[in-house]
């Protein structure tokens, strides 16, 4: 087992309605590295960096079409948290950039919250065994995306992290 932290720095949100396609460099995504890799999301945190009031509405949802050719933009990182952990043979795909971003499921939303990017932050932590999970690379099961929902400000920037475990 390997625990990772996926981080993005000063990312500008985009609004993606349910059933819409995510916008590259404006979302965070996790996808199994193999068809049987199991991911468990332990924590999601986002904090705003706006200089005036801007309401951010973010949600984590499954993808009905997975993102393809994924990578991390400059400043975004995906790092093993435990210094002595060994990465799995095939690392999970953790990304915020994609040549073909995923299509976000309208119904499979697992968490949604709002906060003010002017000094506000939000954090969700799962109890052990109660994590949000993704499995493999199948659509509706394999990919989890964290991104702006209808009504989200698109002018403010936020920094965020997702702590997850690859099993």
């Amino acid at each position, binding site marked *: 087992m390997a625990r990772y932290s996926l981080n993005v720095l000063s990312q500008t949100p985009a609004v993606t309605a349910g059933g819409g396609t995510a916008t590259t460099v404006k979302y965070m995504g996790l996808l199994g590295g193999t*068809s*049987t890799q*199991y991911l468990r999301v332990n924590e999601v945190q986002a904090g*705003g960096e706006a200089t005036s*009031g801007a*309401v951010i*509405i973010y949600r984590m949802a*499954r993808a*009905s079409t997975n993102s393809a050719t994924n990578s991390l933009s400059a400043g975004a990182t995906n790092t093993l948290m435990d210094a002595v952990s060994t990465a799995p043979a095939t690392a999970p795909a953790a990304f915020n950039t994609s040549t073909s971003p995923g299509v976000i*499921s309208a*119904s*499979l*939303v*697992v*968490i*949604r*919250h*709002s*906060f*003010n990017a*002017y*000094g*506000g*932050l*939000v*954090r*969700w*932590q*799962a*109890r052990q*065994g*109660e*994590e*949000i*999970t993704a*499995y*493999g*690379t*199948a*659509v*509706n*099961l394999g990919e989890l995306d964290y991104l702006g929902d209808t*009504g989200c400000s698109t002018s403010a920037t936020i920094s965020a992290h997702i702590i997850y475990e690859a099993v």
Partner: protein
Amino acid sequence: MRSHRSLEGELTLDHRYSPGVPDEIAVRQGLTPGAGKGLFESATITCHRCQAVVVLNPNRSRERAYCKRHDHFLCDACAVELRATGEQCVTWLDTIEEFAKRLDAGKSTADVRVPLVDPKPQPQPEATTTSIIVP
């Protein structure tokens, strides 16, 4: 013996140094009025059928849907669907296990049901695939 509190996660919204979020927006996200102001901390549960995270409202008087079979809470959407269809509860882990078994056996995974996506699956022709087709 496990307590129900041991299943709870935690949501923190910190607007102590921020103008916060208006009630009409916070309530739309499933939060209680006032949750978007100051420091808001609340327990959450993860629906064991669809994995939706539900922020618990301490003022709720309606019963919270609960699955005795699996000793876990359900979100309202799953509870409504189960009551409407009269089906037995299938956990998210069961869904994944079923998917993995079929994948291992080289069988079709097309009719493995993902809760709240395809409530009425149609029979699919046997074929090896790694995706779920939503009708």
